[in-house]
């Protein structure tokens, strides 16, 4: 599969850009840390970070392995349910509930992945969509998911049984910490030798096979990792909001995470975060003003992205910087 992504250059010319990037990340992190004091509504930022994490997990698969999963809501949503059920009905502490949610999602990811990697490309997307729909129906009918109502009133509890998460501020810093850890984990995975093989699979799968790599194993592991991280996002979402509902596991959620990644720039590190930021802010500001038109607007953005804007915000920015650098290099004698 060849998705238009600017190749990542690691040579020395990039060091200036890399430093600038590092600086940007640090500024962003500081801004995030002080955001509640600047008057931003913490629950909104937490929700945003949650979806940013979801989109980063998804990007690991689409952007860096070239696999389009149309069923990531299954992992996000089932983890949301697992965490909600364990904390609410089994009195799990939050950290155990979240861990169980992420592991549960990873296991479901293993099952879905085993089936889906039997086909490539467009079939992969259709199979993941169908499998996710199966998970949706199971969540609809299972005895512990609360059917149409979902799980309501999940308590935040106390971290390790000690630190209460009732206040939004305490919860906020837990979410920031989890997000940063997951973001660094994704970046570590992508830059590892394993991540390099994933990129090779994205660029040229037959060649990877001919070089002796067991492509299916790599794809499966990438799928499981992505599912587990998506699950982490879903678990944290339950804890923040206090509920898990059918919309968490519905195919529209799978569509939303695709849009976030596409809009921000797939195959870039910060793109999904950016995309999640745009989509969540848009939904938040528009929801009470335009009702169902939100879906129409999301659909229009989808169409525009695919027709004119396939690199996404960050991708286009990178391409622009790249062009400028080349122009500057060409101007020098």
């Amino acid at each position, binding site marked *: *599969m060849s998705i238009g992504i600017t190749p990542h250059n690691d040579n020395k010319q990039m060091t200036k850009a890399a430093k600038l990037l590092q600086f940007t990340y640090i500024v962003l992190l500081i801004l995030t840390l002080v955001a509640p004091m600047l008057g931003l509504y913490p629950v909104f930022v937490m929700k945003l970070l949650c979806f940013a994490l979801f989109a980063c997990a998804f990007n690991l698969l689409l952007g860096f392995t070239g696999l*389009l999963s149309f069923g990531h809501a299954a992992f996000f949503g089932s983890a949301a349910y697992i965490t909600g059920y364990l904390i609410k009905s089994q009195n799990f502490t939050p950290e155990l509930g979240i861990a169980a949610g992420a592991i549960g999602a990873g296991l479901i990811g293993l099952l879905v992945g085993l089936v889906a990697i039997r086909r490539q490309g*467009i079939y992969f997307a259709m*199979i993941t969509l169908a499998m996710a*729909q199966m998970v949706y129906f199971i969540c609809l009918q299972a005895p512990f998911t609360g059917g149409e109502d979902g799980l309501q009133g999940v308590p935040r509890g106390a971290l390790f049984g000690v630190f209460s998460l009732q206040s939004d501020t305490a919860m906020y810093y837990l979410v920031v910490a989890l997000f940063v850890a997951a973001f660094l984990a994704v970046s570590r995975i992508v830059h590892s030798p394993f991540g390099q093989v994933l990129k090779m699979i994205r660029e040229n799968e037959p060649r990877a096979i001919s070089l002796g790599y067991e492509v299916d194993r790599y794809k499966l592991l990438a799928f499981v990792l992505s599912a587990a991280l998506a699950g982490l996002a879903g678990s944290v979402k339950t804890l923040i909001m206090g509920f898990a509902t059918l919309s968490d596991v519905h195919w529209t959620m799978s569509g939303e995470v*695709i849009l976030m990644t596409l809009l921000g720039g797939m195959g870039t590190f910060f793109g999904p975060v950016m995309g999640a930021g745009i989509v969540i802010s848009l939904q938040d500001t528009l929801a009470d003003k335009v009702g169902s038109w939100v*879906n129409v607007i*999301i*659909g229009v953005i989808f169409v525009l992205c*695919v027709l004119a804007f396939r690199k996404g915000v960050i991708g286009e920015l990178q391409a622009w910087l790249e062009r400028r650098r080349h122009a500057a290099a060409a101007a020098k004698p």
Partner: protein
Amino acid sequence: MEIFGIPHQAFLGQLLLGLVNGAFYALLSLGLAVIFGLLGIVNFAHGALYMLGAFAAWIMLDKFGINYWMALLLAPLTVGALGVVIERLFLKHLYKIDPIYGLLLTFGLALIAEGIFREMYGVSGQNYDVPELLSGATNLGFMVLPNYRAWVVGVSLSVCLGTWYLIERTRLGAYLRAGTENAALVQAFGINVPLMVMLTYGAGAALAALAGVLAAPIIQVNPLMGSNLIIVVFAVVVIGGMGSIMGSILTGLGLGVIEGLTRVFYPEASSIVVFIIMVIVLMIRPAGLFGKEA
């Protein structure tokens, strides 16, 4: 009289309902397969086009007093024309890039269509009465057959077989199949491939709309009817493999019947049985029942 401990009237009723659903699966997966063959695009908007067909029929009756029989012709023509516009405006820009973009674009189109109709009509269904000529039921002795359902199965099967004949046995079909194999070569032989591609998408859209009109009197006409169906149809397509027209028809009907039977014996699993079959087929024969190994 009972069959496997189930009252035979209930059994045959569900079997018929399964056959009706199967007929819709067949009509939709047929259109998907033809579009994918020539355009290389998995048309997520297919469900939305089906929904538009049903709504077109309902609006025609409600606002303009156009009856079912005229709608059966006019709704597919309208939606087919819309399909042509979609192809010209959007899809033709995507033929040279990765097919996943086609899926994403048509997904966006489906969201737009669904959102607009949700805003206009809400999520509750609209009733569409069965046309008088087909209302009532015929007593066959061993079961009571609702006339309209028999009509739906009959029409769908005829249209499916007609499409099969058109594609597999006529000159036009030969052009289409050749275009699927190698569009550039067919173009070099002087056949207007872009026109053919455009009309193919229009025809696929019209087929989906026809299914929508047929479905209107059976189910409530509502904006979400399409996306719920399209995901099952995707599974049907994966099971059958998109390579063969007859394969799509048989798989669609067969899965509809299996789903109906599941509703009799183990109702809880009826909504997921198609997906379970998909998993089994992928494990045993990844290319699908009628697909060729890529």
